[in-house]
């Protein structure tokens, strides 16, 4: 260990604020872009599923046993 105590580790002989700011921003940005990318993929999959689900039900073998009811619009 290059430091005697946790306090010394945080202060880093006066350079602490510089070092910790860098590490904070680094992890903040890398974390944000990772989570955002994960959510994007999930959103696209969810969107596709929503768009596809009625037609898939129609095509599936079980779908033959019932007919879709189209309620009149008026």
């Amino acid at each position, binding site marked *: 260990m*290059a430091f005697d105590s946790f306090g010394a*580790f945080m202060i880093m002989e006066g350079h602490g604020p510089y070092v910790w700011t*860098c*590490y904070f921003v680094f992890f903040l940005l*890398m974390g944000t872009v990772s989570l955002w990318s994960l959510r*994007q*993929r999930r959103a*696209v999959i969810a969107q596709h*599923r929503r768009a596809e689900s009625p037609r898939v039900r129609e095509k599936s073998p079980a779908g033959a046993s019932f007919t879709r009811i189209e309620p009149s619009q008026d």
Partner: protein
Amino acid sequence: MWQIFHKLGSPKWFFGIASKLMPWLLWVGLSLLAAGIVWGLGFAPKDYLQGNSYRIIFIHVPAALLAQSVYMMMAVAGLVTLVWRMKLADVFVRAVAPVGAILTFLALFTGAVWGKPTWGTWWIWDARLTSMLILLFLYFGVMALGAAISDEKSSARAVAVLVLVGVVNIPIIKYSVEWWNTLHQPATFKLTEKPSMPAEMWVPLLLSVLGLYLIFGWLACLRMQTEILVREGRTRWVKELVQARGN
């Protein structure tokens, strides 16, 4: 050889491979990065001149190196788009451009914060810093141009040309510290020489560089998968995949 090349061009094949690779890339990458950073922050000796402020190097150098590598990879992909018209190459460029921009920003930001206690200034218009700022704007340009043209094919070609034109900036960044007088110091690591740094410093640095490269690999796979899902939404394999994942 050509068969692999054509297979690589198949989005479906890539999607499967990426899914298998991603957990490895992420967890090995995170472990290496964590090891490098913990070692660098807490155990590496301080520098005789700069003291502890030099510990910023363990993220500054990985971010700066990767920012340039990502651009080089994008340039290769741009060449593939223009010559072979491979769709997956354009998918790669679109997927990684924002990541490259973030890495470039991080390199500039950590450099500025490091510059204040060591040089005495946050920013100076020397050749290294300015060419790195140009790289950031190139990434922004690629993102903006891609978004501005709606036709997929012409958009892909325009983006590829811009990426290729911008690639001349990469050697300028690398050699700026040798060709011109700059405030930024020359490279500590050269291929032909021993690093001018003790092993207690360069081993953790190497670990965090490798870790960040792997994490980038994970991010690239993830973002390419998203892009493929958007583009190939109407194909049968995507429909089947979406249903299979749903339950």
